[in-house]
Structure formats: structure tokens, C-alpha cells
């Protein structure tokens, strides 16, 4: 079984997938694509439903036997299942539930806020030729929205609040712990992936959060993470954004 990862800058979902790959000690061909220019939509599998309609928005694609796999948390679960190295999920079912529920709330509340703020500070460039290739109508709308700078003050404020809430939750969770779930897990990768770029954009959220700052440093110095970050082509990969998951449409 050979694997290829089409990935962007090591930020957001690409960060999680690359770090999970290295943490689990696996080999894959790595192909850098510019997610912020919509290059994912040029892939041969771009219109496969699980690629085109991925709820996460722009993110890496893991190719296995001709099938394109998306969604950073679920790819990380897959890599954990087939990996040879360290494990990225607890063994106990309750601890696994905790990790999946943590990731779910992060994906639903924090990730859309981070993508919104990231794109507001670093708008993507899109052209008509790229837009027509996007299979998902609502993802296309998010591209157009971000490129045109149509962000609203309400949503920016709400997004900043969600980042603050996420950091508070992390700070509380880390009491007496080195990692979010006790043992290092996908929850650490996914939380770091969405929050690394927020330190600069929402500094108030990180003020007086010593446990969070130490945890981010611990994540960064892990060999697999250092290797992930070394793949960056931009001087500041955490300032590199493409349209992510949408902000909840209602309730």
C-alpha cells in the first residue's frame, strides 16, 4: 500500500495530517500544493464526493489505492490505525470518547472561527478559472466572500470570543497535565493546528495562559512536529490560510 499526501503549508488541517503521519512513523510521498490558491481543485480526485464536499473546507488529501481521503481528524485516526509507531489515541473507550468529543467541539466552534479570522488577516487570492472548478457551492461562496473582504464586525467579534473560549478550555484542561487527554493524542495536534495562528491575531486570548503557552512549546519541539514545521515554504506558515469549515448556519 503506497500513500501520497497532497498538503499545504503546515497550518490547520495540513499540520495535523503531516504531524500524524510522522508521529505514527509512516512513509508517504509528500506533494506540496498551494491550498490558498485553490490547487486542491486541480487534483484528479477533486470531484470525488469525499474530497469535493469535505466539511473541513480546504485541507490535505491522503491518497490510498486511488481513493482520496480528507478530514484531518479522521485521516489522523486512519494513520493511527495503520501506523507502526507511537499511538495517537488512548486505548480506553471512555478516553477515546473524550478525545473524539473534544475534537468535534473544536471543529464545530473553534476551527470556523480561526479560519474566518485567519482569512480576514490574510485574504486568499482567487480567480474565476479556479472558482469554477470548486465542486461545493458553499465552499466556493466562502472563497468569494473571503477574497472580497466581506467579513462582518459581528462575526469577527464572535470568532475572537470563540478563540478565547477555546484557549480558556485548554488552559483548564491542562491543569496537572502535560497533554490535553493526559497522553499525547490527536486532540493536541488538532487544537494546536487551529490555534497556532491565533496567537498573533487574538493575543488577548493567550494573555496569562501559562499552561497553554508551555503546551504549545511542548507540541512544537516534538520531533514529528518539528519535521512537519520544517516543510514550510512560507516564513510564517501559521499565517497562511485557505477557506476552512463554515461558521454554523444556525443553532
Amino acid at each position: 500500500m503506497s500513500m501520497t499526501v497532497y498538503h499545504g503549508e503546515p497550518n490547520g488541517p495540513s499540520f495535523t495530517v503531516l504531524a500524524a503521519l510522522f508521529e505514527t512513523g509512516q512513509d508517504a510521498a509528500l506533494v506540496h500544493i498551494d491550498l490558498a490558491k485553490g490547487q486542491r481543485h486541480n487534483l484528479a480526485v477533486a470531484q470525488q464526493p469525499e474530497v469535493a464536499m469535505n466539511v473541513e473546507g480546504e485541507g490535505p488529501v491522503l491518497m490510498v489505492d486511488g481513493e482520496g481521503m480528507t478530514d484531518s481528524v479522521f485521516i489522523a485516526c486512519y494513520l493511527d490505525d495503520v501506523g507502526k509507531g507511537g499511538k495517537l489515541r488512548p486505548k480506553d473507550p471512555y478516553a477515546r470518547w473524550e478525545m473524539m468529543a473534544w475534537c468535534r467541539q473544536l471543529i464545530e466552534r473553534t476551527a470556523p472561527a480561526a479560519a474566518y479570522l485567519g482569512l480576514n488577516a490574510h485574504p486568499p487570492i482567487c480567480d474565476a478559472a479556479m472558482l469554477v472548478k470548486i465542486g461545493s457551492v458553499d465552499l466556493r461562496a466562502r472563497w468569494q466572500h473571503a477574497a472580497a473582504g466581506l467579513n462582518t464586525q459581528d462575526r469577527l467579534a464572535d470568532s475572537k470570543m470563540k478563540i478565547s473560549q477555546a484557549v480558556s478550555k485548554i488552559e483548564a484542561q491542562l491543569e496537572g497535565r502535560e497533554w490535553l487527554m493526559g497522553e499525547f493524542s490527536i486532540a493536541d495536534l488538532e487544537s494546536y493546528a487551529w490555534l497556532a495562528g491565533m496567537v498573533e491575531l487574538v493575543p488577548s486570548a493567550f494573555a496569562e495562559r501559562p499552561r497553554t503557552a508551555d503546551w504549545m512549546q511542548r507540541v512544537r519541539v516534538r520531533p514529528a512536529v518539528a519535521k512537519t514545521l520544517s516543510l514550510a515554504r512560507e516564513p510564517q506558515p501559521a499565517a497562511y490560510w485557505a477557506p476552512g469549515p463554515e461558521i454554523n448556519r444556525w443553532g
Partner: protein
Amino acid sequence: MSDVTLYHWEPNANSGKPMLALMEKGVAFVSHYLDLLNFDQHKRDYLAINPQGTIPAMRHGDRVLTESTAIMEYVDEAFTGPPLMPADPRDRWRVRWWMKFMDQWLGPSFSMIGWNVFVGPAVRTKDPDELKAAIERIPLPERRTAWRKAIYGLFADEELKESQRRVAVGIRMLEAALGKREWLAGDRYSLADINGFNLAYALPLSQPKLSNDELTPNILRWLRAIYARPMTKACWAMGRTPMVKRVAILEQQHIGKEQVT
């Protein structure tokens, strides 16, 4: 007595997911019914169990679990009984991908339409002051917005139109996936099918122009196959509202374009 208690509403959407998963797994549980239309989920007794006031929640021993899809994975892993996740890691990825797609993209569109036509009108007749107080008790701000929209009929036309667009896209995707595979995520019944059935069991009734035996034969085959399982029937028999009785549509041999009754 079982050490599992499930706090749930109808066998429908999020509540029905862990209900059916527990039953398929053969896990006995104490059923604690919460009447969503009576705002039981925002009352003090339940908030002591789940402070977010969302349904369902499951108590196992002294632990409380929330998030219906994560609960289902827990049920599959924590109890013996027939496995509800495939053995192959890539199939497991596909189960999770489709569950998230339904939970976060397709499901909210179905439920916006459902809340607009069912939940909103069902509670709107209550005393206005009582409704106002009920909304104020909702812990999560997003849920407060959702209830306000449902109760007062505030869904904008474009919101409903977008939901209907997504429902149409989702139906096409389900039909294509079920044309490729016997079950939603692979060649065996899994949590993805339990999740999908909760979303789509009444599809030929709620979306007769988009889903019927002529237009979506694979979806109908799939729904009937799930409905034929004894545990599905037992689970839906726990329902109390006309909403879930709609599952009986699947007893019809053929549901044509104009034959929905």
C-alpha cells in the same frame, strides 16, 4: 438494572443514533425520555446531567457522555456485541467521513426544514411568556438562536432555500454512494447507516419529488433494508409523536413519484 441510562427524545436525528446503536449492540439501557417540545432538556434536573442542555446524553456508571456520534463510537467500543464499525481502517475512515457530513452539513439543513414545519408550529401554541422564559433558560447561545427562529418562524427565505439546495445535493450524494456500495460506508452495516437512517427514514414523505423508487432506488433499498432489521422496528416503536410514525412509509412495496400517501 442496567448501569446505562440514555436521556433522549424521539428515535429521530441525534437522539435516535445512540438509541439504535445500543439496541443493535444488545445493550440494555434505562430509557429516560425528555420531551423536546416541552423543553425538558433545559430544565434544572437535566442540566445537572448535561450543562449544555443538548440531547442526547448517556450515563454509563458514574460517567456522562454527550455528542451523539461520539457516543455511538463509545457504545461500539465499550460493549461486546456485534461490531458496528468495519474492521478495515479505510472503511472506518469512510464511516466517520459520512457521519460528519450528515451531522454538520446535511443534517442541519434537514432539521432547519423540520423545525420550520414541525417543531416550530408544535410549540408556538404555548403561552408566550412561558416560551420567552423557556428560551432564556437555554444554555448555549447558538441553541437559543435556533429555538427563537423555530418558535417565531424567523427562518429567512434564503436560509430555507439554501437548506433545500443542500438536501437535494445530499440526496444525490447518498444515492450515488449507495449505488457503489451496499451500505453507506462499505459492505457491512455500520454506525454510518444508523446515523443515515435517523436522518433519512421519512425521506420519501418529506422530499417526495427528490426521493422515491424511480429517482433514488438505492436510497429506498437501503432505507427498507435498515427498516427490516428487528432492532430498527423496536427502536422506532419507542417513538411517541406522529413525526416518527412516518417511518411506516417504508412498508409500502413501491413508492412512485405520485404514489406517496
